[in-house]
């Protein structure tokens, strides 16, 4: 390195340093923000979705219905319409009732045809509407047992009765007795991605391609039941002749 140059070069460096620092300062103050804060739109959650109230309102005991502004119980009509006489008759007033309760597909399995204000047990004994769980118990004994012990069904209030009232819902406060399966629900919105929205772009075909481990016998059986079924029938056909 020649020593003839340094002082001129040095002068240049020294002269440029001040302005360079100044422009750096300007950049810090007026320069663009280099990072966009990747914050997503917050989910919209209707307050009703978070209600802890029972999902169903139950009928009274005995159930009543307003007809021409008169409150009627079941027997008010069924005194006349004797269902016991025609148990398989058309459901005139109750056509809207859609019974989807497994193999339990007869009204009289639960309703007391001799006193329509009540429900009926196997032995013909009556159960009032307010005791509905006893009716359900006749088929769902294990679940009833769980419910009695507090491990089936929705509970709210205190986690121990020593510290406050424990509210336990009865069967029909969640389940529609005619369609006891929970109706499908609209799930609340998922997160927009990781909290800071920095998820990579998902590859075509989605990130969770289930076919990736098709070698898994369990998965194969679950995903393509017809495969294993076909194999069996084919084999059966081979064996026949």
């Amino acid at each position, binding site marked *: 390195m020649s020593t003839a140059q340094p*002082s001129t070069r040095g002068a240049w460096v020294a002269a440029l340093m001040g302005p360079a620092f100044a422009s750096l*300062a300007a950049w810090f103050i007026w320069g663009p923000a280099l990072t966009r804060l990747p*914050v997503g739109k917050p989910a919209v*959650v209707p307050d009703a979705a978070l209600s802890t109230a029972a999902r169903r309102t139950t009928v009274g005991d005995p159930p009543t219905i307003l007809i021409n502004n008169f409150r009627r119980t079941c027997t008010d009509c069924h005194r006349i319409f004797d269902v016991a006489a025609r148990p398989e008759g058309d459901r005139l007033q109750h056509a809207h009732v859609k019974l989807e309760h497994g193999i339990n597909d007869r009204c009289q399995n639960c309703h007391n045809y001799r006193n329509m204000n009540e429900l009926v047990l196997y032995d013909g004994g009556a159960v009032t509407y307010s005791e509905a769980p006893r009716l359900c118990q006749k088929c769902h004994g294990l679940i009833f047992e769980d419910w009695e*012990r507090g491990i089936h069904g*929705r509970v709210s209030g205190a986690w*121990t009765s020593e510290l406050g009232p424990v509210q336990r819902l009865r069967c029909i406060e969640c389940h529609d007795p005619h369609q006891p399966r929970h109706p499908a629900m609209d799930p609340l919105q998922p997160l927009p991605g990781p909290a800071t929205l920095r998820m990579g772009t998902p590859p075509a075909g989605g990130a969770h391609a289930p076919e990736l481990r098709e070698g898994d016998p369990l998965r194969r059986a679950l995903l393509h039941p017809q495969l294993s079924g076909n194999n069996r029938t084919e084999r059966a056909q081979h064996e026949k002749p």
Partner: protein
Amino acid sequence: MKNPDSTPAAGGPQITRRSVLRGALNTAGGLAAFAAAVSPLRDLDRDELTLERFLQKHYKEMTPDEKDRALQRIAAEVERRYAARPELRDLPAMDGVEFAYALNLGRCIGCRRCVHACVAENNQSRDPEVQYIRVLELPRGSVDVERADHYYDRPAVPDPDHFYMPVQCHQCANPPCVKVCPVEATWQEPDGVTVIDYDWCIGCRYCEAACPYFARRFNFAEPSVPREKLNTDMTYLSNRPRRKGVMEKCHFCLQRTRAGRMPACLEVCPVGARNFGNLLDPDSQVAQILKTKHVLVLKQEANTLPRFFYYFDEDFPRNRGSAPARGSEAHRKGLSLTVLNPQAAQSLPGRGRGGPA
């Protein structure tokens, strides 16, 4: 090669006013650049930088007096930010109580009500969204979380081909997160709940790396909770509003559970899949479940000894084709429920007619 020190005298004669001036200019430029570089600090939140806050002790070291003062200071701060006076208190653990949770995988329908009830109850940031509970949608036939979808957005749940597994803090009896914290900002309370002192956490995120359940959340940005949505029922160790740069996680709603109430996620569950209670009380929900159900824990191999249990009870046939529809084969054969009890059948007139037309 020139050694700069070997030519000290070279500069001697050149000391001029100009060079001194230039030196001063460069120094000034450097200082200006430095000042400009740190200028964003003007926007720092002054609330965060008070001496009081700086001197606040670790939760476990505070005397009752100091704790009261800290609670008042925090309450005042919350009031300033949210324009609502919070009911901030410190609830101690109860004697003879060990909280545990049990979740029925057979019933969960993946509706995410629990997720958002938790957000609302625990004053979690809405923007950016912080959620303690993650609901995993898993294909049937596997609990391999790698196949889970965290972001399913179907018009209706449950999907018959999937089952749903909500995951939140497992309140481990052998918690890896507590072990790794360098400043003891997180610890296990006597009632089994792992809590965080939000005023002690330094935000190193080591616990987040250690957690095998992805239960911990970091406040990457300043959390924001709409004023009208603030839950004013809060305690020091649970749902008081957090600030940016600290960890948070599920604490079994201590502000509720230590006052005897059920956690928010449980109360909102529409299908009653969630159960909570005192493990030490043999009559409690969870104790009953552990006794009578087939219970499993997630990632048992990690030996974290969770207090969060999953179980299945009787086969809950919500899968496709679960219920024989009317007109099915069984139906046609006249197989009906009442036949099971001939006595009842006889007692009903008209029973003898047999199957339906």
